[in-house]
């Protein structure tokens, strides 16, 4: 474990450097226009020529005016330290010193990413539970019923080929209009994305016992339910956890997508709000919180997996 920290840091440093370079290139046009407005001399001088010039050409022609590419307010691509600052401001600073922060108001601020992360987390968790349960039940049906085996799987696959961004607004609108709470609408989309990996993994897991193990059960004249509870289900546990890890990440994506069409909180709402108002820092900050959330969720499933397998006596 310890030995791998060096390479990880190296790659991280490389990515950050690349990001800074990209920020220069992405923001150069706007920064130069602003500098010209402030009276600086830009090469080439005419706006038309600048439009045709490559971005890198502009960068190297105007090295002395580039400072602002890492600090401008409304950059196309904010620099890493700007995103970090935004993250800090919209979590710790907002909650501790903001008027609506938890310290002063007693409840989480609706301008803080802690609050929005919590909203998304709630929808993710609910959606994941629904999706995982549905996935497991469908898998059991598929394994035990030939009719379901032939009918459910194709539909499950088709369901995943429909782009979720196209489907999400329809689901949201329908569920809102029949009066269901927003949390539930988001959870439905979240479940829609997470049930599929669980179905696939569980079907494989429930079919994992080989002929010999099934024959052994037959020599005991075991009932179907005995075979399920004592053989198929325990044998499927490693498969289940592998697919739960994929499922929970998909759940998070689903919850965020579900938050896009309605501006009622959540990381998805922050991302879309940020893009409406050109606040790229806000988008990036929300993105990082989402990534952090995903990492935590997958780690959590991994932790439950380790505990479960340990309790089942699997070789450490």
């Amino acid at each position, binding site marked *: 474990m310890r030995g791998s920290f060096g390479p990880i840091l190296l790659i991280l440093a490389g990515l950050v450097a690349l990001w800074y370079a990209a920020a220069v290139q992405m923001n150069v046009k706007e920064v130069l226009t602003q500098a010209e407005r402030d009276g600086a001399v830009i090469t080439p001088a005419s706006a038309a020529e600048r439009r045709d010039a490559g971005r890198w050409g502009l960068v190297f022609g105007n090295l002395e005016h580039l400072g602002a590419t890492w600090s401008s307010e409304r950059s196309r691509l904010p620099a890493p330290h700007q995103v970090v600052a935004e993250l800090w401001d919209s979590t710790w600073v907002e909650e501790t010193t903001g008027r609506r922060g938890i310290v002063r108001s007693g409840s989480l601020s609706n301008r803080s990413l802690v609050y929005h992360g919590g909203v998304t987390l709630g929808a993710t968790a609910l959606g994941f539970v629904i999706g995982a349960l549905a996935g497991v039940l469908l898998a059991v049906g598929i394994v035990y019923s030939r009719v379901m085996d032939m009918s459910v799987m194709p539909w499950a696959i088709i369901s995943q080929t429909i782009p979720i961004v196209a489907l999400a607004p329809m689901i949201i609108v329908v569920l809102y209009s029949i009066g269901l709470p927003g949390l539930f609408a988001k959870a439905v989309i979240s479940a829609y994305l997470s049930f599929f990996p669980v179905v696939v993994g569980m079907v494989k897991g429930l079919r994992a016992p080989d002929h010999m193990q099934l024959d*052994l059960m*037959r*020599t*005991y004249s075991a009932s179907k339910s*005995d075979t399920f509870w*004592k053989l198929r289900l325990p044998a499927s546990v490693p498969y289940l956890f592998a697919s739960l890890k994929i499922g929970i990440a998909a759940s998070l994506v689903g919850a965020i997508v579900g938050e896009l069409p309605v501006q009622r909180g959540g990381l998805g709402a922050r991302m879309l709000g940020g893009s409406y108002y050109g606040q790229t820092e806000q988008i990036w900050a929300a993105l990082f919180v989402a990534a952090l959330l995903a990492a935590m969720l997958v780690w959590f499933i991994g932790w439950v997996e380790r505990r479960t397998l340990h309790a*089942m006596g699997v070789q450490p």
Partner: protein
Amino acid sequence: MDTEQDKNKMREQSVVKASALDLTFQTNDGPVHALKDVNLEIGKGEFVSFIGPSGCGKTTFLRCIAGLEQPTGGEISVNGMTPDEARKARAYGYVFQAAGLYPWRTIGGNIKLPLEIMGFSKAEQNERVTRVLELVDLAGFEKKYPWQLSGGMQQRASIARALAFDADILLMDEPFGALDEIVRDHLNEQLLALWARTEKTIGFVTHSIPEAVYLSTKIVVMSPRPGRITDVIDSPLPKERPLDIRDSPEFIEIAHRVRDGLRAGHIDE
């Protein structure tokens, strides 16, 4: 000697009776005659070995006895019932080539598996686990997981599992096939002791001539394509068999006969 009398007694109580048994598998490459016109009677308390080249139907015959395979012709009865009925009456325990212990259950838990399914009480389960573990010389390993045991110990545990519910018949398909010779010798000795103590009827598939001769009261020699019985040898060896009986002239003579039977099966083709 009283062996003649013994044998007569066994014949009276035949446990497995197959007559004109046929089994043809329909495969994509056409029919495979796994068993053809197999006639065999196994008496109570006999130790019967099945030996023959790969594909001669040893496994298939054992599976027919266990009701895991449906014959396409002929008759087979177990304890006077159909194999299916016999299975429901818990007539036999089956030991597969691989131990097939569930990795998520302890050794004790694995042995309890059939007991749970058959509805034994908790107290009875515990009592039986202790008893069969002693029988296979694994006392004290109840709480260990399969991966903590050697291959030979795992196979012994799987035999204990088959013994746990007191079936009269033990069907074993190359149970020691994957083990080295020394472990195998040891397990063979233990198996004989167990057989003597429990008076079970045992059907045992093997590829090894010495193993078959050492263990059996009856050796069934089979040959492939179609799978059939070419020779049935009743062993004159006494029930009490120390390992060095394998150097005795009687032993060597039976081994010869088995080898000849196997060779004849091959020349037939």
